[in-house]
């Protein structure tokens, strides 16, 4: 079992939490050299950076910026996909039907929606069985305990405020590593 990433979307369709367990992209040395063209973001990052003579730091900082952009784009694409598929499923299967998962040749996406329209999405490899109960557990044991019951967390998590707290992060990491360890032991 491999888990690639995990997202939480609130009822205002905003991505309030995302985490990936993907391996880092290939080392900057392996990249082709032609990407040293100047761009506004790259220049701004480079001028604020004391080591701006080193092309490697410039490239890695720019790739960090583009990786962040890509991550937020991915979150938007994922939300659009699950939103469309959920509506399609509801139209065909009736109001009580629920979209569970889809699979392509490369990965599998699992979906879980709570009564308050909080949406959990998890990307795993294709062989993984249903992760619905796992996401239900995350909702009960982590979200409710560490985010909802936290008196300092706001009601609406605009920009992810209140979700990225230490206990939630720690709990999620422990839960997922435990899950993967368990699956590995069974195999």
């Amino acid at each position, binding site marked *: 079992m491999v888990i690639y990433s995990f997202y939480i979307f609130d009822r205002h369709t905003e991505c309030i939490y995302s985490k990936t367990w993907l391996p880092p992209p290939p080392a900057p040395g392996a990249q082709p050299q032609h990407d040293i063209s100047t761009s506004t973001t790259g220049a701004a990052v480079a001028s604020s950076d004391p080591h701006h003579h080193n092309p490697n730091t410039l490239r890695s900082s720019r790739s960090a910026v583009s990786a962040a952009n890509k991550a937020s784009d991915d979150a938007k694409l994922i939300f659009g996909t699950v939103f*469309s598929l959920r509506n*399609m499923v509801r139209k065909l299967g009736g109001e009580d*039907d629920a979209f569970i998962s889809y699979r*392509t*040749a490369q*990965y599998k996406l699992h979906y879980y929606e709570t009564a308050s329209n909080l949406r959990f999405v998890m990307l795993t490899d294709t062989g993984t069985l249903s992760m619905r109960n796992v996401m239900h557990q995350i909702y009960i044991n982590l979200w409710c305990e560490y985010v909802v019951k936290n008196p300092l967390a706001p009601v609406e998590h605009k920009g992810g405020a209140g979700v990225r707290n230490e206990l939630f992060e720690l709990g999620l990491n422990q839960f997922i590593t435990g899950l993967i360890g368990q699956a590995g032991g069974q195999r």
Partner: protein
Amino acid sequence: MTVFSLVIINKAGGLIYNRTFHEGGLNKISTNDYLVLAGTFHGVHAITARLNPVKSAPERPLSNSIPGVPGGILTRPEPPSGLEVLESENFRLQCFNTLTGVKFLLFTDTTQTNVDVIIRRIYDLYSDYVMKNPFYQLEMPIRCDMFDRKLLSYIREVNNR
């Protein structure tokens, strides 16, 4: 084990065939809604192919295979495929995307097995009775009696198994 319905979408995302085999499996929706569904699915299918989290190692086979590889044929990684199977609580949707970009969507109940075999057989029927029909215009809605008849008898056989 029941096959509910079949939808065929052309490479531009237009609905070209739509038939229900079993009443009561899925909600009845109008032809207009089916057209919307086909277009939506076409778009979502393209996005799901792009969302692939697994990045293949770039350029590695190229640099390795140049010296001393017999034949010298460069291996190309499989292109990312879009959505293949969708599961919900009440039904299962299998999508078969042909090399020419036509999509066959088969809606079945959640316990149906061997859906890929059924869908290949339907593709065979499509090739035999739609593509070989001299009066069929490409990308246009399928109105071929022979296809209808063969498809209905095949699905009836599957549903009565």
